């Protein structure tokens, strides 16, 4: 009985501390401790949709576009993977892969595997005559 009472008291104190931690303003230094993906964004600004939509819905857009291209021969540039790579490839590595690459850095952070580039080129098409 006695030990149970102590346990219940300890639990209540722990809950109170948690609540206090939630209510207290978060110190500014704590935000720096949260790891964020390090991305080389060479062309900041608006993509084909706004940033929030792109972050959430780019897989669906790509999947939709891939079926249109594959089966209907529609090769519009707006939602095509080729155009993503064309615009977002790093100027240093020339690729969307790599530690700070536009696609890989975020996918590594979210632990989501990208299968696209086992078949698709991760580097944009070079202008004819240019060397890598």
């Amino acid at each position: 009985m006695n030990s149970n009472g102590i346990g219940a008291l300890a639990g209540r104190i722990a809950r109170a501390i948690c609540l206090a931690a939630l209510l207290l303003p978060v110190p500014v230094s704590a935000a720096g401790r949260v790891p964020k993906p390090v991305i080389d964004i060479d062309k900041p600004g608006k993509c084909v949709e706004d940033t929030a939509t792109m972050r959430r819905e780019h897989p669906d857009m790509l999947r939709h576009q891939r079926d249109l291209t594959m089966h209907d021969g529609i090769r519009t540039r707006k939602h095509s993977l080729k155009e993503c790579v064309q615009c977002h490839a790093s100027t240093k590595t020339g690729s969307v892969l790599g530690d700070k690459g536009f696609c890989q850095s975020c996918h590594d952070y979210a632990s989501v595997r990208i299968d696209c580039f086992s078949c698709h080129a991760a580097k944009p098409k070079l202008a004819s005559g240019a060397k890598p």
Partner: protein
Amino acid sequence: MSADANEALSRRGFLAISAATLGGVMLAPGIRLIEIAAARAPEQAVSRQVRWGLLIDTNKCAPGCDDCVKACATENGLKDTGHPRTDAQWIRKVELKDMRSGRTHSVPVMCQHCEHPPCVDVCPTGASFKRADGIVLVDRHICIGCRYCMMACPYKARSIVFAEITDQNPDVPRGNGCAEGCTLCVHRIDHDRQPACVEACTRAGHNAMLFGDLNDPQSEIAQRVAKYASTQIRADLRLNPGVRYQGL
């Protein structure tokens, strides 16, 4: 080679052709009852009114010449991995000899883009499919690499990729574990360009390959097919390939 398998024209087929021919008649300058093979807008899907095809003149195809094979490899990123037995092969030169007469032929053979493709029939996932305009393709997104299509194809036109591939042509995604074959350079066709093999053959002055819309009576390929005898390989299988050979 046996005669063309399409000798028996069904009533429905005859009516369809008649309708297409009548539709092709100009009602007024620039206006047709049925538009045949009009240039496609970028956001417009491919149409069943088009049937892409190749006509290969074997009399002009020189033995030992592999300009088309090289052009295909360059365009589609087919690299020599040092394993010729397992390397993907989209187009190959076949040397034929009639043992009685001694007459020889050298012909390029690639996916024949059948109207009734056996590779599509056997595919368990629907990855092997025929596009509305007659081009037979593999959707690598859903290909599981079972290789049934390789077994089913009477032309040995399909290959499977055994190794990781890097530095693909951005227009031609290719990867390990997927079946593949000649796409008729679909990425070029969609931008109103000729397949790489045809372009190379013409550029080198051989003019042995002709690409075009078999359904468009105005196209050079349709006119030549209508005028001169041409054969389909293994026409006895009644697959109605889109690739035809002249002079075999």
